[in-house]
């Protein structure tokens, strides 16, 4: 097992979302000329940011501008990456986000959100790569420098460039503070995941986000390698545990891109209607749907004990679990952030002592009938690296807007993970879209849900707010607020692997 991570070999997006660089634009492109594409890749290799922080001795220029590159399977194959890597690339990556009806069903990409309806990334316009460009200001000049003379010869944009915007106070388009909770990556490789972990922790093994390192099962996630003779210049590192192979996957990871539109007006007008026009009630209901106030405060009290991987400065935002709120009367079970991160450990929280442990292990001794329904969170974390787009529309203005202003707003959702199926897809399907999450029924994520009807279910468009007094407050007819316009599964290679791709004959 490797003893340290060479951060200079890891693209910078793994370390940071480049939040200081408030200007960013993403290009989803198809390769139309392979030779030019490779030459272009050669020309920008030195510009790609790595994960060495400036304060750790990184390139000072990297503080001001960034370039990141991620490839789909079709892109890698066009560029000549050996076919044998297919044995190590995950099947979901090779199939793509839009590649199979089953995947679309599971992810909730159906109806109006089906791949056939997407602006890009659907069956006929899969992107070969995404080029992500960031800058503290004056993005255009940097973009021109990155694109260089070869750009239009090498690529065709499968959709118009994906603009982003920076909303003040780190809010997302709906008006809620965003990006508050991220797993803390164990860059030091100090964490050795145990067979069974009894406490929820936020420090996650590097192998969950980076190929080539132990994951939360203390195993190496499968990753692509090439034969030695396919790497004659020895650009790649020898693949550990695979004699005669060189490591294409090491220090790379998978990038999931979902191009989402958000109906800001629709959300706030719906909340307003449910609150009979009362501003405070509207904000409160919004907070219940999200699981945090617009300012980002959690709805449950902070835990008494510290949580591993939650730094002191973020304790007020993140030192909490839902153990104190099993019925969801403070934070609804189905609230957006409770679905996305239920904050549970491998065993139920009351598992203390040998006898109790044995009992719970066999499924007995639960304090409540709907206890222990949610999978352990540490196997299902992702690093979120998305960017908003569109101008801000404040909740109060959204309520007043009589007709839609027609300005698109939304999120270029990006997340990184080493195992797309176990991490992103699981969270999306079992937790966010799951109409049966944690013993609920007839509802999916109040923000993200597509409200698609299910055979045998009265509806999927409710949102219940449990009450201490008994009957839950039931919000019905929740519309769809978020829809999917495009996306794909990409591979974010290591710096070495980028050089390797650029060097292919």
């Amino acid at each position, binding site marked *: 097992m490797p003893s340290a991570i060479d951060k200079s070999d890891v693209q910078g997006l793994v370390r940071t979302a480049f939040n200081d660089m408030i200007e960013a634009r993403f290009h989803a492109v198809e390769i139309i000329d392979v030779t030019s594409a490779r030459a272009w890749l050669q020309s920008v290799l030195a510009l790609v940011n790595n994960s060495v922080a400036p304060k750790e001795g990184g390139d000072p220029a990297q503080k001001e501008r960034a370039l990141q590159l991620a490839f789909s399977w079709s892109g890698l194959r066009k560029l000549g990456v050996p076919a044998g890597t297919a*044995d190590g690339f995950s*099947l979901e990556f090779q199939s793509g986000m839009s590649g*199979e*009806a*089953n*995947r679309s*069903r*599971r992810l909730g990409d159906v109806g109006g959100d089906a791949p056939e309806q997407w602006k890009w990334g659907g069956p006929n316009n899969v992107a070969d790569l995404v080029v992500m460009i960031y800058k503290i200001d004056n993005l255009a000049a940097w973009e021109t420098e990155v694109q260089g003379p070869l750009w239009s010869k090498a690529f065709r944009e499968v959709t118009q460039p994906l603009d982003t915007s920076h909303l003040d106070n780190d809010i997302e388009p709906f008006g809620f503070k965003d990006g508050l909770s991220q797993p803390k990556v164990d860059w030091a490789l100090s964490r050795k995941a145990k*067979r069974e972990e009894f406490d929820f922790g936020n420090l996650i093994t590097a192998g969950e986000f980076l190929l080539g390192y132990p*994951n939360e*099962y203390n*195993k190496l*996630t*499968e990753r692509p390698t090439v034969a030695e003779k396919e790497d004659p210049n020895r650009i790649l590192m020898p693949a550990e545990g695979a004699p005669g192979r060189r490591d294409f996957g090491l220090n790379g990871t998978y990038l999931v891109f979902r191009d989402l539109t958000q109906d800001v007006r629709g959300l706030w007008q719906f909340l307003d209607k449910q609150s009979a026009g009362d501003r405070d009630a509207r904000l409160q209901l919004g907070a219940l749907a999200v699981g945090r106030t617009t300012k980002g405060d959690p709805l449950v009290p902070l835990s008494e004990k510290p949580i591993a991987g939650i730094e002191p400065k973020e304790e007020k935002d993140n030192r909490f679990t839902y153990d104190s709120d099993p*019925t969801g009367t403070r934070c609804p079970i189905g609230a957006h952030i409770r679905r996305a991160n239920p904050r549970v450990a*491998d065993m139920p929280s009351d598992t203390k002592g040998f006898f109790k442990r044995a009992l*719970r*292990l*066999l*499924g007995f001794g639960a304090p409540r*009938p*709907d206890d*222990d*329904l949610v*999978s*352990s969170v540490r*196997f299902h974390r992702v690093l979120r690296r998305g960017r908003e787009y569109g101008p801000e529309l404040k909740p109060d203005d959204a309520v007043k807007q009589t007709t839609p202003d027609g300005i698109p707003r939304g999120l270029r959702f990006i997340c990184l993970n080493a*195992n797309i*199926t*176990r991490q992103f*897809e*699981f969270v999306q*399907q*079992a937790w966010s879209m*799951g*109409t*049966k999450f944690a*013993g609920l*029924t007839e509802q999916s994520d109040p923000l993200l849900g597509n409200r698609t009807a*299910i*055979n*045998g*279910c*009265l509806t999927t468009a*409710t949102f219940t707010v*449990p*009450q*201490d*007094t*008994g*009957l*839950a407050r*039931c919000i*019905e007819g929740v519309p769809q607020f978020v829809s999917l316009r495009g996306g794909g599964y990409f591979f974010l290679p290591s710096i070495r692997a980028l050089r390797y791709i650029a060097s292919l004959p």
Partner: protein
Amino acid sequence: MTPQGNLMVLATVTAGRESELRTLLASMNRQPGVVDPDNALVPFRRLDRIHFARFVILDDRTLDDITIYKLPRVDYPLSVAFIADFDGPQNSFIDELERIAGSGLARIFACCGFGGGDLKAWMKEHRTKPAANYVNTVGRTMLEVREEAALRDFICTYLRGAGAPVVAKMTPAQVRKTLRELVKSSGIKLTPPAPTPIGWRISQLINFITGLLFIPLAILFLPILIPLGIIYLIILRLHETTDAEVDRRAAPDVQRKLAEIEDHDVANQFSAMGSLKPGWFRLLNISIGLVVINWTARHIFTRGHLGRVQTIHFARWVYLNDRKRLYFASNYDGSLDSYMDDFINKVGFGLNLVFSNGIGYPRTNYLVFDGAKDEQKFKRYIRRHQLPTEVWYDAHPGRTAVDLARNTRIREGLERSSMSDADTRQWLQLF
């Protein structure tokens, strides 16, 4: 209480008639993975005692694996299985099957050696008993499932519609009283459970006591068992450290076919088969393992969970070909990946206990450790051994095991003559 029964008819597919059989089975589906419950061959909807049913062709693609033990590949004849989980005794179910689906079944089984004549006798002849069988909630009949679902939907519709202003200002006790009266006047039927068959009770008791007898016996024979246990451990470790793994992905086209038929409902089917590791030791191991699972499923895990897993409706383990091979089938909630994650994280030890006796399984330690915890190897192993279920019927689509349990609690709460305030609040939280 009416306990559930099960049936598995297993028959060899007549040479040359496989494609005809596949066409027939496919004709029962609206699309791959979605059965037409009113299909002409087996109109499942009319067989209203059924919870789940399936047809699966046992086409094992891993027969080569045995060669890692320097044994020759054995080509078993292709077979097809019809499996059903239903309420009540098997005999009367077979009668019903013949009455309602006799001609369709005759056509299907004609591809498997049924030459006309007494279909019931033929099916009985081709029955195969599971080595172990799991039922999520023993005694919850389909009638109860349907009635309780109707009750829950009725109350929820009321509470969210006309009833909302009525109950808004009520105390929990008043709400419950209102609901009780409403249900009473609505004509919603809640059939009381039928008396428990005495024969079933007796066989349960005998089986229970037989199992318990092992405890005093074990204490009595402790002086012998300890050295035996040590010898067992040594042999086990010898096997575990030398048994080879077979770690390959299933062919992409097979994986696509499997995925194509999954996730059309909130529940899914799972079928898998493989060969057992050769030799007496592994056979002994799995025999004990399955006896333990069967006994605990009959007496301990009878109320909504198998270990910590609350998402399995029915499951069975079946020996094939003289215990050379094992077939496993289950009906579970969620998608296959979350099912596998649940398994790995919650009952990895139980999986290891049984499936580590199959050829190629990820390496275990001391029978219960590791194995499934080698997550990706385990998932590849599962996918590689999985079989496409040609036809699958779920009598309560859109409802998970947790839904059914909730509905039962709703009914129980409604029928209770009195309830404390705290209990009433908890009960009302079910809606």
